[in-house]
Every structure is written in C-alpha cells, then in structure tokens.
C-alpha cells in the first residue's frame, strides 16, 4: 500500500476517533492537539534551524491572551482574531531573534529562559490587570464561525483537528522547501551556507517568526479550548515540557514532535492511577525513553523500519 493510502487511513481514524470516547477524553485529545503545534513550532526552531529555546511558554501566553483580547476588547470575530494572534506572536518572536544574532547554544538558552521569565512576570503586574486580569487571568470566549459556536468537546475537537492538520501540512511543506533546506544548511555548515548565498540573519528571523507563530496559534487554541487563561500556566515547567516533547519525539522530525507531544500529554493521565508514585514514574519514563530510544520515538521507528524489510514492503509503492 502506498504511503498516501496509509495517510488516508490515519485521517479516517482521526475523524472517527471520538466515537465511543468520553467527553473528558476528547477534551484532553484537543489539548494534545495544541501541544502538538507547540512542539512542531519548537522543533522547526531547534531541530531545523539549530536555535535552542527554553522560553516557548511565553509565546503560548502571548498567543492565548492576544486571541482572547482581540475578541473581548476589540470585538473581532474568532476567524480574524485567531490568525492575528499567531501573526502578532510571530512578530514578538523577533525579540528573541535579536540576541540570537550574537548568541548561540547555551548562551541563547539563557536569553530565552530570561524572556520566558520576563513574560510570566510582566503579565500579572497591577498596571494592566484591568485588561489582563492579574494572577487570576481572564475568561476566553468560545470559538465561533458565522453564527456557529463551538462549545461542546466534540465540536472543539473537530475544529482543533482541522487547524492542527492544516498547520502541520504547512510546516512540513516549509521544512521541505528552500527555507527548510536553508535552515538545515545554516545549522550544519554556516560558512558554506553563507558562501552559497543564504543570508543567515534573514533565515534566523524566519525561524524565530515561524516558531513563535505556530506556538502562538497553539496558545490561542489552548486558551479557546480551556475557556480560561492565567499566567500561572506558562512557567518554566511548561517551556521545558515542550522542549521534552521535541526531544522525546525525535529532534529534527515533525512526525516525531507529534508523537512526543501526544506521549507527554497522555503520560500524566496514564499515570494518574499511580498516585504518590506519579512524579517518580514520570521521571523514570523520561530516563527510560532516552536510554532505550536515544534518538526519540521517531528515531526508534526509523530504526525498526530499516531493520525489518517486511515493514518497508508495507509502505512500498504500487503493491
């Protein structure tokens, strides 16, 4: 069966999945969708462009607050506010691009860490608590299109599914295009890439914009699904969780990020029966995944795929 047929089957599975699932589970799956976008956003920055960030939660917050405020304060419709939240977050992503011009690796990590801390500290300040709601946060309106309001878990799931699939397809195209190849070239051999006419400044800016855009959309999506947003959700812990999703899924592969995000979103729910062993089991899971799958879940699949010819036949064209 060709890969295209498998993709169709996967799509059908995703459309039919809510059948027989409880409302709460569907809600968690939708949140996982938002996490998938955040992980894909960081993977483009980290895996393709080679720029480390441990402040991504800040972009989630900016996206979420922007989309909510554009709707409540300016009275914009969801379908305008939502993409605009992504664009505005993308532009704030350029704040990190400035230190990235001079800094790399661990030094850049500190700048992004500082950015994350700064945003989380700025949001609850009393000067704008009338709009941003201080530590309490604000209510986020339900998404709506035309006169239709998405307010059940099922409706939100399908909305999330469409948005996430569209943006994953877009991201996959971006990383396979000239831009993606330029990211990889600049990451692996900056001097050679420059000699070939790739402008490092411009492509670094692109990387930060795309990453912040996707993460902003993820934040907006999460805010609309939950219906509330408050600064407490966007601490260093969240940034590191997104970082872990990328690493566990497999750095430099978008399908990997999808798997990593799904895995880390569901892990707490699988472990919720473990009660006081929860934290221990979560930590142990992180250690064991890296020990047994050093290149992440996707890397592990790829190794299986190349080791067993039977699997390769399954995806071969024209059979």
């Amino acid at each position: 069966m060709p890969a295209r047929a498998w993709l169709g089957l996967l799509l059908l599975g995703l459309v039919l999945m809510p059948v027989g699932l409880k409302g709460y589970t569907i809600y968690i799956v939708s949140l996982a969708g938002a996490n998938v976008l955040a992980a894909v956003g960081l993977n483009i920055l980290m895996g393709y462009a080679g720029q480390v960030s441990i402040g991504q939660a800040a972009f989630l917050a900016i996206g979420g607050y922007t989309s909510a405020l554009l709707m409540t304060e300016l009275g914009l419709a969801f379908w305008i506010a939502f993409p605009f939240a992504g664009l505005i977050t993308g532009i704030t992503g350029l704040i990190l691009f400035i230190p990235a011009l001079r800094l790399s690796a661990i030094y850049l990590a500190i700048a992004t860490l500082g950015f994350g801390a700064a945003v989380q500290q700025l949001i609850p300040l009393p000067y704008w608590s009338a709009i941003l709601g201080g530590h309490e946060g604000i209510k986020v309106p339900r998404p709506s299109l035309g006169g239709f309001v998405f307010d059940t878990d099922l409706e939100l799931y399908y909305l999330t599914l469409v948005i996430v699939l569209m943006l994953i397809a877009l991201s996959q195209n971006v990383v396979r295009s000239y831009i993606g190849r330029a990211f990889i070239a600049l990451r692996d051999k900056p001097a050679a890439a420059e000699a070939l006419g790739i402008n490092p400044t411009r492509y670094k800016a692109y990387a930060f914009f795309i990453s912040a855009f996707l993460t902003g959309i993820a934040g907006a999506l999460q805010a609309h699904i939950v219906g509330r947003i408050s600064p407490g959700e966007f601490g260093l812990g969240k940034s590191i969780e997104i970082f872990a999703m990328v690493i566990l899924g497999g750095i430099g592969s978008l399908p990997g990020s999808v798997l990593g995000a799904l895995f880390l979103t569901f892990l707490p729910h699988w472990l919720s029966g473990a009660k006081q062993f929860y934290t221990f089991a979560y930590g142990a899971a992180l250690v064991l995944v890296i020990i047994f799958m050093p290149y992440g879940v996707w890397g592990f699949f790829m190794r299986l795929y190349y080791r067993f010819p039977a699997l390769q036949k399954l995806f071969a064209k024209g059979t």
Partner: protein
Amino acid sequence: MIEQYIVLGLAQGSLYALMALGMVLIFKTTDIVNFGQADMTMFSAYVGFTLMVGLGWPFWAALPLVIAFGFLLGIVVERLALRPAQQAPVVSLLIVTLGVALMLNAIASWIWGFDPKSLPYAISGPPVVLGNIILTRHDLVIFGTTILLSVGFFALLKFTKIGTAMRAAAQNRLGAQLLGIPVHRINMLSWGLGVALGAVAGVLIAPLVFLDLYVMVFVMLKGFAAAVLGGFTSLPGAIVGGLLVGLFESLLIAVPFELVNQLKETLVFVLIVVLLAVRPQGLLGEPIHRRV
C-alpha cells in the same frame, strides 16, 4: 547603607557561585547541562536536615557526611542514568537529568513530606559588625567556604594529575581515551564533585530559606544564568558570574522604585543578556572560533 547591600549581595552571590561551579564542572567534562542540580542539592540539604535536626548532630559533623552523600549521589546518577544513555545526543541527556530530578523529588516527598523544614545556621551567635556593615556569622561561613572551594578546585584542576586528566577529557574525549585516561571514571568523578558542590551550597542556603521540595530550583536557575554569564566552561567565570548576579540582585533591591523590585528577576536576566551581547562567549569563556 550601600556597603551593606554590596556585602549581602556578595554573600548571596557566593551561593550562586557554588551552584554555578558544580554545574560548570559537570558541563566541562561531560558536555551535559545538569538540570537536576536543583533537586540533587535539595535532596542533599534534606539529608543535612535529618542529620542536624533529626539526629541533633552539630553542623561541622554533619557537613562531611552531606558532602560524601552528594558525591555518591553524583556517581550513582552518572553510572545508572547517564552512562546507559550515552549514545543519545547531548540535548537528550538534558532530559535524562530532568527525569532523575523528578525521581529524586518524588523520593524526597516520600521521606520528608511536603512541609517546609528549617535548618540551623553553621555558626550561631551575635552578628559581626565591621564599620557600618553588619554580617551574620553564617554569612562569614559562606564567604569562607566559597573562597576555600574555589581555590581548592582551581588547584585540583591546575596542579594535580586527576585535574590534568579532567581537563584533557574535557578538551578531547577521544584523544584522552587514546592516551589511556579512563574517561568514564573521570566523568563519574566530575559528577560526584559537581553534585557534592551543590550539596555544600544546599546546607548553606537551607538555613536562609525554608527548605522545601522546590526552593532550590530558583537558586539553580540563578546559578545556571551566572555560570553562562561567566562563560560556562570557566571555573573562575562561574565564581565571577555568581558574585555579579548576587550583587546586581541586591543592588536592585536597594533601588527605591516599586517597579524595579517587581521586575527584579527580569532585570537580572536583561543585564545578563546585555553583557552576553557584548561578550557572546561569556565574561571569562574561551572565544568561539568559527571553523570554515
């Protein structure tokens, strides 16, 4: 008045410096940023709590045992978690240290519970007055320990055979291995020493704050930022970075604007980023050469 803030800032900075020193030592030889340093420090401080408060030992009797515990913890973590994962890229190893941190956090919550604990000062007694500076005796112990450990580690790396081996392993793993340096054992030693440094920092910080499962995370982040500011591969850099961050933080408290106090954490990072923008390799780090 300002002298008081400077001295207090340097005392706080010394603790960041110790934290930074431990992380730099581990990074220098193994290329791993130990995100578990906070929880390893926390755990060691809890061991100190059991010895000093639970069993009533004096500080000076408990300290060697806490250091030994930290050293062992570092070795165990390297042997059981990081070495099995050594084929993974270094960014992935960061997640391993995070996983270990969560496991230690869970174990600490089983043993000591969630209530904050208070630890005694290293030396109690009336504060010392020098001109118009007032210092607690505990602050003096912090200064003394930091100076002693900085000089000690500098001497260890510079003048001993083990130190030379550690520097060789840091510069070129394969080359060092070919020369017969047991790189695995050197890694274990670095982890042991790095975590032991954290343990010392832990029992010195704990009396100043209420010890709970998470308090060390904030100290670690400052230590990490300080280490990066100093150059992250430079031990003197870690000390200088730590002192600078402590000093700056303390001077910000002295500024009589409410906004400045509210944004203290943010401003510390802004200063670090500005300093790094001027010197991208950190204050005392080796310049980054681009090989074509």
